[in-house]
């Protein structure tokens, strides 16, 4: 539901950046999206295609880099990828863990001309 608002902000920042560089056209936007960020890449694509008209990015493509969530166990000193069973350390079963990756939601870069 909130993907449209996110794309709105992304397009705005991308356009401002391109204009500052005297860019005429945005060719590609690179987004980094973590699997725990709470947004759905497909919904971002959908919103992007609906909202890019009337912007410098009207012919641009959106490339999304999905970041798989991973945790760090403080006790075992290992990083592990999350599975469906949750966050606990697969080695020791402990809770002394931190979400290391997966919350990213970032406009990384754009290509323009």
């Amino acid at each position: 539901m909130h993907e449209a608002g996110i794309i709105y902000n992304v397009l705005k920042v991308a356009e401002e950046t391109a204009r500052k560089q005297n860019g005429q056209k945005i060719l590609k936007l690179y987004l980094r999206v973590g699997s725990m960020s709470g947004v759905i890449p497909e919904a971002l694509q959908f919103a992007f295609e609906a909202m890019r008209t009337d912007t410098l990015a009207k012919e641009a493509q959106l490339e999304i880099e999905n970041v798989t969530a991973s945790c760090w166990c403080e006790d075992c000193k290992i990083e592990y990828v999350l599975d469906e069973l949750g966050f606990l350390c697969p080695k020791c079963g402990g809770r002394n863990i931190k979400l290391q990756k997966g919350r990213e939601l970032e406009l990384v870069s754009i290509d323009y001309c």
Partner: protein
Amino acid sequence: MCKECGCNSGSGGTRINGEPVDKINSPLLGLTADGKADNHKDSQASKNPNSEHHHEHHHSHSSDEHSHSIQINYPVLEQNDRIAERNRGFFLARGIFAINMLSSPGSGKTTLIYETARLLSDKIKIAVIVGDLATENDAERLRKAQIPTVQVNTGTACHLDAEMVARAFSQIANQQIDLLIIENVGNLVCPAMFDLGENKRIVLLSTTEGEDKPLKYPPIFHSADVAVITKIDLAQPAGFNRELALENLKRISHHAQVFEVSAKTGEGMDKWCSYLLDCFAHNKGTFAGK
């Protein structure tokens, strides 16, 4: 939601106590009534000094067009996070302990808030900001019990954001408040991303919803500081498997403190209420100590 583009960043359909949100001034935003903090005019990206210095240019001549690449590294939720931090600082300075309550619709947020406020009414001053897409029903219910309440109608937006809370707070800013309860829009997806400036994030799970909710909605349950299992009086008829629910919560909300309550019968409410009192006292002590 913004009328021009359908985004949630503008102030289009949102109303606070029935008034359009951009007519509401707030001491937290330093706004004038013409809504100068409108995101559309006020770009945080252009103010961010880092955005000027992090640009790396790469030139590519392979295509027929002379294309360039520029590094931006813009965290999309930065603007909300900044306002949230300002809210948090403001609340701390006023000695207010703020909680953000999240759950799916019908998990019992309003009933729990109602009972919590009733039980704590002779100990601390409570105020509520309640978010719903439409209607003042929740606010009416709380106001009848003499609980100062601000209703935010988000229109079609699926969550509260930090700016809505900042503006809503202006409606109760002249009152003494010890505990600010923010009841988010009933939704287990979108509100997870939006920091409101709360001290603790409370996620509810009712016994009638099933034990696997935490597994189905990891981001929101993982972000919880506290998980409250509600409607425990209905656990038996609903066939609620308590052990499995606790196990699932442990997997996803491993760091969260868990409470089990029935706002209806009062079971477990004493522990929950003393927890809130302790948090309030600790929070106030933190600031007074400095």
